[in-house]
């Protein structure tokens, strides 16, 4: 007998949950989509617009280490004194000699990178 009562209770709870879920869908399809995304990628960070996503956006495009360029730049350095450039300028363009350590990791696939962190 007690089993029967429990069963009834469970059914009632489920109906309430379902109703809430339906309400959510009606109120906000965006929230339903968010739930779907989080169900597929449970490790997804809570701050989507955060610096990780933006930094990957800024780094669009592959960068490679090129030994020919490395040697060319080294030769150029020997020939003239370079004016001091601000730190961030040497990061991408300018007369900075590229080294393997300078170059960022090869960009992983975009879906994977969005999931990191």
């Amino acid at each position, binding site marked *: 007998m007690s089993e029967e009562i429990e069963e009834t209770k469970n059914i009632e709870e489920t109906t309430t949950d379902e109703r809430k879920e339906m309400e959510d869908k009606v109120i906000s399809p965006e929230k339903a989509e968010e739930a779907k995304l989080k169900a597929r990628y449970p490790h997804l960070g809570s701050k989507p*617009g955060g*610096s990780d996503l933006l*930094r990957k*956006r800024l780094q669009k*495009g592959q960068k490679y280490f090129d030994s020919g360029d490395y040697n060319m730049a080294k030769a150029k350095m020997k020939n003239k004194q370079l004016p001091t450039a601000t730190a961030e300028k040497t990061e991408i*363009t300018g007369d*900075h000699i*590229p080294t393997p350590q300078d170059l960022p990791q090869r960009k992983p696939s975009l879906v994977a990178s969005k999931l990191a962190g």
Partner: protein
Amino acid sequence: MGEDADTKNINNSFLPDYVTEADVISTVEFSHRGDLLATGDKGGRVSHEPDFDYLKSLEIEEKINKIRWIPQHNAARFLLSTNDKTIKLWKVPVLKPTDLMVEVSPRRIFANGHTYHVNSISVNSDCETYLSADDLRINLWHLDITDRCFNIVDIKPANMEDLTEVITAAEFHPQHCNLFIYSSSKGTLRLCDMRASALCDQHSKLFEEPEDPGNRSFFSEIVSSISDVRFSHSGRYLLTRDYLTVKVWDLNMERGPIETYQVHDYLRSKLCSLYENDCIFDKFECSWNGTDSVIMTGAYNNFFRMFDRETGRGVTLEAARETGKAHAVLRTRRVRAGGKRRKDQVTVDSLDFTKKILHMAWHPTDNIIAIAATNNLYIFQDKVSYDIQ
């Protein structure tokens, strides 16, 4: 620029990818008088050859991001174009009556001004200077000086971990040479006055729509990122495009837009897959007509939308060749979110998300529009304008 863009219709399944990719039109712009139309494509035609930054082996994308005409003062015609890194000034030769297309020739190269990818260029009303914007900085150049520029906006944080937003577009005011606007990935607009200070990190006005905390979701910030901002011809209003809407703002009111138009609200229930396939990051442009009474923007499935500001009504059109006749009238289209599909309706699930109308231009005075649909350029004309000819 090879073949007539109108007849070119490359079928992806028959040609290798690199051919199709290079032909994709990436920018369209009418000249100030509306007598010339310039297009740039991903293959760098109109201008750029692929070039290498030799010291870093960073391959610079050839794709032309933007083209802007220089207001004409004498017989000579010039335009500015930019790829991810370099801005170039081109001379446009005088057209002979028999010319359909002309080859532009490079005159100046404005290089090494940007560390990050250039997203905008805008010629000042003084016709002497122009601005160029990348993700974190905006520079001011003089059209005659190629070896230096002034940095006027710098939002790069000392620590890149603190980065919260990037610059997405920038434009000079059409009349006031000291004012310019820039938009951000957080959906804000900043109006800056170059007379107030040399470095415009402080804005004169900040335009931001307050967020409804109840509606906030994972996607809220991403879909609020402004992909394009345009001053009205009058200089009194701004038009912005974010992922789902176009908005009109009054320069005198910072607290929110005065008009909001839903471009494709039915995509709200598709945001999860649009995030997964990166479509949610697509950057659509928007445009005013010559009298600022109609606004236009692109969407998916080669659809584009026009909104009449006076009536508030919108219409959906498709950039496609109507079978048969060359001068057929475009039919309006309807997208149905769900339920039974009626004739002439397209369901959301059948939309082709690879067919995006990102780039477009409206003739400065006439009702003629240029729509770039992947590797095709469509020119549409208002029936009245056509009949008058």
